[in-house]
């Protein structure tokens, strides 16, 4: 089994079954019967998130509908010392929503109302289970949209986005979740309702809103989110450039930025990813290219015309073998189609794939791509690269077959080494998918024991008993000292 996942807990364990029965009785006292799931086949769908290599059945699942119910559930768990894992749509890629066998899985799936949409103030107040794309759909009649657009936006929830500080292909210009959320209402493990942020652009006191965003469900449960809406750009145009060499494409990314241009999106795919995507959606990609860049420029019509010409010229000078500019919106969307479908496309060519998420300084792109390719050969595992090149956020996809003995372990090890390479060149182990359970060991590489200690102190300020999503995000000192003793790992601290 996997190196990372904690020992699985048996659903039928007699002691746990007794705890379950007791909790169910107490929960049913204030929740409708359909809001508490306790049978094995009922809780099965919740056993994993988007990182399906790790699975664990929860003790039970609750599906509240009101903030008051959430408060009562958390108060009960707090009194009884029962761990709680919050869950949105379960599309997370780091095992953040992986249940605890001895804990309650708190699903926010029934919080799906858009409470208020103010087109003049350009804000939307929504419940946490609202899907990311549903916000933009509701805002569209007013010429507005919600900017962060993870590729999972059809399914993922705003509550999950807040927990992961999710980004998307447009965050180079428009920022991450933290730049687009104005306020959050959360319930603490003690059941208290707290409001962070304000109706204005800032709030008094510490910026706990910024701290809370990206806290992976470990500080509180989000029950309401107010997001900022932006006007839909007048025009958007995409440019697709092909390269016969991955490193040249990596250089071109830096050239665009150095020229003072901030594209709305600047994405890169390498050969294996291009071929997989082309086979899947027939976007018309040049399948003989070693890499393609997709660059989107948006703004007013005149702005776009000027910038597109400049980018085109730059790409030609940078050694692109072909540069296409989209002639209309249909063609622009076609350029994006393959990129947006890249993960499932890779999923078609391999029984399993494992998506990494390190961010590096842009200048290190060529080096990291080269060394990743070397490691891919060393491990005998194929790697496809699809990523947010503009902000240096890499998504190497490691192709493997979980049914082959030992392959998952080797994949995890290769993934771990890629992440450590990201830290080595001055980057980070996760740009947008979160640490969850998956990158818990690499946290020991990126942070010193004192820094991890400070994270634990922050956690304790919100959740002294450590009941919210325990075992995720921040490793214990013991875990780190064990990891450091493993052979084959060179553990560099940035200090």
């Amino acid at each position: 089994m996997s190196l990372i996942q904690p020992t699985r807990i048996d659903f039928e364990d007699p002691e746990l079954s007794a705890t379950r029965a007791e909790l169910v009785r107490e929960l049913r006292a204030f929740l409708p019967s359909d809001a508490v799931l306790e049978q094995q086949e009922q809780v099965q769908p919740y056993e994993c998130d988007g990182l399906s290599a790790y699975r664990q059945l929860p003790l039970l699942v609750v599906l509240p509908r009101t903030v008051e119910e959430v408060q009562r559930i958390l108060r009960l768990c707090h009194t009884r010392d029962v761990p709680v894992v919050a869950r949105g749509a379960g599309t997370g890629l780091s095992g953040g929503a992986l249940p605890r066998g001895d804990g309650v899985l708190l699903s926010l799936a029934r919080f799906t109302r858009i409470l208020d949409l103010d087109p003049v103030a350009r804000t939307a107040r929504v419940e946490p289970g609202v899907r990311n794309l549903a916000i933009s759909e509701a805002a569209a009649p007013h010429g507005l949209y919600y900017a962060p657009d993870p590729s999972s936006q059809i399914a993922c929830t705003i509550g999950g986005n807040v927990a992961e500080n999710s980004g998307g292909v447009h965050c180079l210009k428009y920022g991450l979740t933290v730049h687009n959320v104005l306020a959050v209402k959360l319930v603490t493990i003690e059941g208290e309702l707290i409001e962070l942020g304000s109706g204005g652009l800032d709030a008094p006191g510490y910026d706990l809103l910024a701290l809370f965003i990206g806290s992976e469900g470990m500080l509180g449960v989000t029950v309401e989110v107010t997001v900022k809406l932006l006007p839909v750009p007048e025009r958007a145009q995409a440019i697709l450039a092909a390269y016969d060499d991955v490193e040249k494409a990596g250089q071109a990314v830096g050239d665009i930025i150095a020229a003072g241009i901030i594209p709305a999106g600047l994405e890169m795919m390498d050969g294996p990813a291009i071929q997989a995507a082309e086979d899947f959606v027939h976007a018309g990609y040049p399948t003989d290219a070693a890499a393609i860049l997709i660059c989107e420029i948006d703004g007013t019509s005149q702005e776009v015309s000027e910038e597109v010409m400049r980018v085109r010229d730059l790409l030609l000078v940078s050694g692109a073998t072909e540069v296409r500019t989209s002639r209309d919106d249909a063609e622009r969307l076609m350029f994006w189609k393959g990129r947006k479908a890249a993960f499932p496309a890779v999923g078609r060519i391999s029984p399993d794939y494992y998506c990494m998420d390190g961010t590096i300084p842009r200048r290190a792109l060529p080096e990291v791509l080269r060394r990743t390719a070397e490691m891919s050969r060393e491990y005998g595992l194929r790697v496809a690269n699809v990523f947010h090149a503009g902000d240096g956020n890499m998504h190497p996809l490691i192709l493997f077959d979980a049914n082959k003995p030992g392959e998952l372990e080797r994949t995890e090890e290769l993934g771990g080494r890629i992440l450590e390479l990201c830290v080595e060149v001055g980057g980070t182990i996760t740009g947008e998918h979160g640490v969850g359970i998956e990158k818990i060991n690499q946290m020991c590489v990126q942070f010193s024991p004192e820094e991890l200690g400070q994270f634990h102190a922050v956690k304790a300020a919100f959740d002294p008993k450590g009941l919210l999503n325990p075992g995720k995000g921040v490793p214990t000192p013991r875990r780190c000292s064990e990891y450091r003793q493993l052979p084959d790992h060179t553990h560099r601290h940035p200090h």
Partner: protein
Amino acid sequence: MPNLPVHVDFEAFVNDKGKRVSNDLTAELQDRVRHAADASLPLRLEGNGTKSGLGRAVDGEILSLSGHSGILNYQPKELVVTARCGTPLCEIEAALAEQGQMLPFEPPHFADASDEGRSTLGATLGGTIACGLSGPARPYAGSARDLVLGTRVLTGRAEVLRFGGEVMKNVAGYDISRLMTGAFGTLGVLLDISVKVLPIPTTGRTLVQTCSPAEAIARMTGWAAKPLPISATCFDGEQLWVRLSGNHGGVSAAAERIGDEAVDDGEALAFWREQIREQRHPFFAGDAPLWRLSVPPTVAPLPLPGAQLIEWGGAQRWLRSDAEAEVIRSAVSAVGGHATLFRGGDRRSEVFHPLPAGLMTLHREMKRAFDPNGILNPGRLYATL
């Protein structure tokens, strides 16, 4: 385009004070904090002391941070600059300008040119980030906290810790760098700070219209709902100023849509930089207490005694008023905003908007998590922190 890393000789950087030497005082500062922590003696953190008028008055031994200075890393292609906390903002801005880049949040310096001594060097990066101050571009380009990417901090436990980094996206661990922004030095000493930078737009144009305050708010919010390259807005009591920034085509087209008179570039610069960002507009002169009201942008002009100046598309309103704090605060709370006694008035009272009990408890816990002995700027933000 330059493909080679641009060489900037930071050690020999020259500003109007002559040559500046890059200085690492980490060890000394850590010693000072360790001793203070052991003895439970409060420290008053000071950059160049230019914003000592902000926040509440603090007692304690001065911990001067201006000596810990120098730009550590500036890579124009990476859109990030890292500098020690004592580096003057003007030095950073000059280094960026050489490469055609800028600090997008347009921070105020609040350096009084007539003030002899330390503050002639103007604001430090550390003081600016600790106060979380942003200038006219804030609603359009982001705030100080939006642009902070990483910090190295010295906590009240005298530990030197690094959070975030120099990359644009980073979700490893809690976002402590952004938590430090605007904490007024009560959670830690910011030693080094990495901030995102952006290219200076090639074209700027400022237009002026005459209208009523209510009409100004309506126009600002109306424009914000359209895809226009607006980078600042201000209603100064009589006129509505709007600044457009971008490339030539985009700015010209937008100026035509908005209409009215364009002011010349010198006047525009003086208005946004001196009068508004640095608060030298006659509105800010005199002794009447200056309040900063942060409200939803669409809120109608607030019926409070005293003059008002409206910025940030309606979201930031300045008020000169002798009215009771209670009166101002309840009017602003009622519309979902908060009020800060920005300058003048009683600096021993709570100058920041009072927090609800539950949130205040979290603040106290957070303070304890970083500064258990309560030695860093105690009481600067709230009396009990």
